């Protein structure tokens, strides 16, 4: 249960070393953890309207089945009598039931997969609110069990198809959204009811009509032809349990409804009622391109109400720090030991942020650790550096330095730079994490306890004396994980490093001793990414178990669980004000979570592939996300709108970063290029009038070519990470690929 402690002594030492961080504010947070988590489930399985009678009957039949299977024949009789169910109805059910039973007998694998699902939910009950509501998968699936005549499915579907193709253009685009979810549900229904031949015929006939961005899903779908397979497939279970969300204008919806009622096409209507959620809006129907830009995710678009919550995207007020006014750097270094001695003017940056941003959260909305002296020194250094910052723009592009990992035969999987660009960390597939010093300053360990005892603690250079000069080296290797390291993140104060791995743990490493301090267990499945809060102390992780978790470094259990993604959480990022967390997922959505209450406050759809990179703009207003389809999407967090699409990359985008002032967005990809985009222009050109804000229907200008400021090739090195130094020099990192 407890955290992994490879070196318990070190852990203790560490705790003693930083008591002031640990004590403040945590109790406040951990108090409301549980409630926040549980209330966060955005998915409700209860149908909105539907046919309650049908549903009841269906449940009854499921119960009957259950009783029968357990040989409780008397109860079966009683129930049947009371419910007034005919023998024939139940009989048709029985065949289904036996089919399922046979499947259980045959496919041992299906069972094991199934049990895995339930194990997951048992092991992490908080993380699986959806599954918790449906303990028995067969009950979930039984929704499919009593539908109409299999051979007629093609007729139903093509009937609807003919109708949609015949309506006016403006409605056709909207109603065409129905094709994909209907197609999938009907296919699954056929498969579930053991109509394998019909299912295959149905698939062959209509799969070609679907939008190309659903290809990956269709590929999975077409391999699935047996009921037993269905039970083990989590993606499709998700498809079943979550309701596919469509935005359709009232006019189009009326048209559809009228048609279905006229034709008595109950089959289609039932599916719409049960498995789809149609978000009806008043106003102009959307155009095809508008629809296409927003669709593509596993569960359709986001319900509008989800994105209505207020998001405090503003930045927190900078703490006031007395900056010694000295122009010469060497003088500053003299002052480092006692920064407060010299009372002088306040720095301009500090005074600028004095005015409270109306969009900013309250300063103490999330308890943040107090600044240590060393943090204040670092802030001062930061301010000094930023005065020397190069102002970037379309006419003034950054220089790029490429850090190439050579001989990384074991596979480079993750990279991170410290904010001051002094350290570089790489995660590798051979379970190691390596840290390099990027400055001439070598990496040194703290001396051993015995040696530390003999040091005079009062001396001025005690911080220098505690370091063991013998251990100085350019790089250090951290061993501890037992699987590939998929994410690394430095703490802002450069004292810690986080790494997340396939072994299901996140580890916290000390960069003083270069040992592991804590192993955070909880995900139980591969942890794909982790990221430190910009203020330290908190961090977020996301993994294969489809949830993201918020942790504090001194708690071995998560403080918050962000559950709602329908597939793996592939990347996680903290908002600059530390009040929100953004996650990208294989379900092709980006979600924004409130750290305070673990609520999902934004669901951003539009990506057509798994999302592998996220970046907040420095002002906190915008979010950029990159996916396997090679597109970068830009989002306005306040309005929850997509405001830009940057096309150009030809492979997965693994790295995104805004320049320090936010004028330029850099993207790095597997296609061995770094591209620079004019983010200012992209943000400025957005029409953010009230109408678009309320409807969420935006006309995206197709201006990727205009926004692209530069494209830079590496020789044969995929770009894994990007980082802007404090002076706006762009650092890129990746492993040379010799093939």
């Amino acid at each position, binding site marked *: 249960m407890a955290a992994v402690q490879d070196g318990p002594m070190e852990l203790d030492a560490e705790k003693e070393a930083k008591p002031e961080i640990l004590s403040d504010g945590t109790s406040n947070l951990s108090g409301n953890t549980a409630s926040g988590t549980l209330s966060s489930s955005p998915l409700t399985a209860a149908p909105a309207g539907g046919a309650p009678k049908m549903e009841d009957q269906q449940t009854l039949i499921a119960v009957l089945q259950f009783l029968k299977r357990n040989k409780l024949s008397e109860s079966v009789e009683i129930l049947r009598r009371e419910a007034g169910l005919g023998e024939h109805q139940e009989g048709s059910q029985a065949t289904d039931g036996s089919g399922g039973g046979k499947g259980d007998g045959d496919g041992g694998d299906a069972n094991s997969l199934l049990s895995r699902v339930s194990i997951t939910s048992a092991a992490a009950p908080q993380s699986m609110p959806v599954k918790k509501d449906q303990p028995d998968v067969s009950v979930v699936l039984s929704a499919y069990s009593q539908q109409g005549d299999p051979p007629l499915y093609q007729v139903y579907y093509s009937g609807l198809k003919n109708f949609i193709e015949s309506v006016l253009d403006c409605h056709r685009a909207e109603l065409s959204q129905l094709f994909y979810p209907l197609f999938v549900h009907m296919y699954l229904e056929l498969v579930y009811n053991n109509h394998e031949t019909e299912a*295959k015929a149905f698939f062959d006939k209509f799969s070609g009509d679907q939008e190309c961005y659903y290809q990956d899903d269709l590929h999975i779908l077409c*391999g699935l032809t047996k009921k037993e397979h269905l039970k083990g497939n989590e993606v499709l279970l998700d498809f079943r349990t979550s309701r596919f969300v469509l935005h359709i204008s009232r006019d189009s919806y009326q048209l559809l409804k009228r048609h279905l009622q006229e034709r008595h096409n109950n089959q289609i209507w039932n599916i719409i009622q049960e498995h789809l959620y149609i978000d009806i809006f008043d106003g102009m129907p959307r155009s095809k391109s508008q629809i296409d830009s927003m669709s593509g995710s596993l569960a359709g678009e986001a319900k509008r109400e989800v994105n209505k919550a207020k998001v405090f995207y503003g930045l927190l007020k900078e703490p006031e720090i007395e900056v010694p006014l000295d122009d010469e750097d060497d003088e500053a270094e003299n002052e480092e030991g006692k920064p407060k001695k010299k009372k002088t003017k306040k720095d301009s940056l500090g005074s600028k942020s004095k005015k409270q941003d109306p969009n900013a959260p309250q300063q103490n909305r999330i308890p943040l650790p107090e600044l240590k002296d060393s943090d204040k020194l670092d802030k001062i250094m930061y301010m000094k550096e930023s005065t020397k910052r190069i102002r970037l723009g379309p006419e003034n592009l950054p*220089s790029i330095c490429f*850090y190439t990992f*050579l001989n990384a035969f074991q596979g*480079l*999987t993750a990279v991170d730079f410290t904010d001051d660009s002094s350290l570089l960390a790489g995660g590798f*597939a051979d379970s190691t994490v390596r840290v390099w010093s990027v400055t001439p300053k070598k990496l040194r360990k703290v001396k051993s306890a015995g040696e530390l005892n003999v040091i005079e603690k009062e001396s001025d250079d005690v911080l220098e004396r505690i370091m063991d000069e013998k251990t100085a080296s350019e790089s250090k290797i951290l061993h501890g994980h037992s699987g590939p390291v998929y994410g690394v993140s430095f703490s802002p104060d450069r004292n810690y490093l986080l790494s997340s791995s396939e072994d299901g743990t996140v580890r916290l490493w000390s960069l003083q001793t270069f040992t592991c301090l804590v192993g955070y267990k909880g995900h139980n499945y591969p942890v794909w990414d982790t990221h430190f809060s910009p203020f330290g102390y908190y961090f977020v992780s996301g993994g*294969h178990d489809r949830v993201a978790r918020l942790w504090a470094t001194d708690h071995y259990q998560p403080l918050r669980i962000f559950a709602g993604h329908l597939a793996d959480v592939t990347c996680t990022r903290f908002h600059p004000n530390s009040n929100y967390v953004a996650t990208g997922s294989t379900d092709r959505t980006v979600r924004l979570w409130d750290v305070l209450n673990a609520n999902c406050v934004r669901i951003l759809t539009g990506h057509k592939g798994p999302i592998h990179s996220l970046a907040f703009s420095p002002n906190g207003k915008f979010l950029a996300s990159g996916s396997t389809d090679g597109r970068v999407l830009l989002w306005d967090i306040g309005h929850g709108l997509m405001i830009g699409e940057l096309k150009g990359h030809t492979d997965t985008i693994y790295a995104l970063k805004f320049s320090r002032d936010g004028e330029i967005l850099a993207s790095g990809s597997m296609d061995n290029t770094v591209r620079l985009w004019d983010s200012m222009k992209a943000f400025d050109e957005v029409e953010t009038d009230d109408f678009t804000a309320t409807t969420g229907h935006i006309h995206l200008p197709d201006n990727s070519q205009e926004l692209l400021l530069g494209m830079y090739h590496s020789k044969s*090195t995929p770009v894994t990470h990007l980082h802007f130094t404090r002076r706006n020099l762009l650092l890129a990192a990746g492993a040379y690929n010799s093939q």
Partner: protein
Amino acid sequence: SSSQSGMTEREERRFAEVPRESIKLMAESSGVELSEEVAALLAEDVCYRLREATQNSSQFMRHAKRRKLSVEDLNRALRWSNTETICGYGAQDALPFRPLKEGELFFVEDREINLVELALATNIPKGCAETMVRVHVSYLDGKGNLEPQGTVPTAVQSLSEDLLKYYQQITRAILGEDPHLMKVALLDLQSNSKIAALLPYFVYVISGVKSVSHDLDQLNRLLHMVKSLVQNPYLYLGSYVRSLVSSVMYCILEPLAASINPLNDHWTLRDYAALLLSHIFWTHGDLVSGLYHQILLSLQKVLSDPVRPLCSHYGAVVGLHALGWKAVERVLYPHLPAYWANLQAVLDDYSVSNAQVKADGHKVYGAILVAVERLLKMKALSLTLAAEGSGAGLPGTTTGAVGFRENSPGLSPPPEPLSEPPLGIASHLQAGGAGCPWEEWTPVSLPAMYCELYSFFGDSLAVRFSTGPPLGGATPPGPCQPLEGRKEPASSAPNLENTRKMPQLTASMNISPRRDGSPRSPLSSSSRPGRSTSQSRDIFPKARFPLPQAGPPAFSFIIGGRQMGRRCQGRRFQTSFTPTPPLTTHPPRAYAHKLPVIGRVSKPVRRWTCSHYSLHLPL
């Protein structure tokens, strides 16, 4: 069932399929009899599970930021779905997928591996270069590539297509028939800056001398290849020097198959190889410590082995001669009394059956004569220089050597290195000789040496000094002819002050037509004196030249050559001989084991790893 088979066919278009026959076979192999229907169902399920595992594994690939799905990815997916993993397919290399001739069967070749051999293997690959990070400025202000990303130091540098093509063309041209093409190829090999990766391959080709010892022409071409490689200023030969030296030594010393036929002019080849040897040594000797002594030992061993044919002895003599007068003094001179008896016997046998051997003997005789002549001249010179040069009295050879080296032009720059290779070797000897236990060797005084040599050669030695006060025309042509040829016009004022002050004077002089590259020139120069001296032995009366009894003989020389080139200057003090290796002499054959194996880690790579990169960037 028929509908099912129809479905299977349709399915096959979408996915790879495990046929039910395979399922049945597998079941049979574990002793289970399956009905057709069960096999079909199982086959379909297996396919589905495989697809599922593949789909799940792709996420591991994506997160590892790779494009290529690996076996490890699939195993991870299997492990997470509680399925046994597949072992034994983790190798990085592609597995060859091969068809079986009989029947339509395809399989992955899976050779048996002898684990014992693998475990006890001593050649543990050191190829795993360390993971490192290197930084370079790719784009400055968003414009243009500043510098190319550079080559990657890998343990085994893979050859690019272009390099491979170059290698083939060059070797073909050099070993081919067309002399013009050969010339072009050699010239390129000498000046191309991008062929470092090919060096081991060329060295390997050159080590093929052992297999073409019957073909003088090929041997010649290979030696030329050595010369070009050695002269290429962009190549770092490193430990390959050893291999090159061993190939060259082979040509000098071995009784080549080609020398069986007296019509074959293998003498020229030996002369050329000897010059080449000294050149390699002079320009690259510092790369391998102890090389000089190893070479001397090899030469000495051949010389002192009476069983060896005379052509081998000849090779040893010219080799010593090429290495410099110090080498002659230390190896040839002490051996001369013992060797003389044998040689004399050969030369005195006038029987017809001995005619060929006798002719060979004359060759050796000539070579020795030339060598000792130079020895005497140089020794005399060094002594006079020492006596006159610095009053700061380091005694004997040391001063002489130093003085000599300082005054002598030493090495000429690479383009014409063969002209005076032996010059300056004294310094090396000096360094190596310090604390060298391999032979108790005490320098013999010049007059004593002259006396002894005179007792062997008589007037044929004397005539070389007496008949020609060092006027160029009078000097008999010898292998050092290029050297002496140079001084011709200046020789009117051959005093030492001049020499000291104007070593460069000779540099501007006419140089007799340079023939360093061609094997013909050493032939004409070295074989002729051999013949002529053997004749002159009988012609000149013995007592015509008075023996100098005391004091340094008043020989005077002009030092030919040119000012020391920059490159050579840099090398002057580089050679440091570690205490010489134990006396066990290595025959050149011993090098065979040290030949470069293609693909083995070589030294330069190591050097790179430790130093030549930096992460530091002025940010």
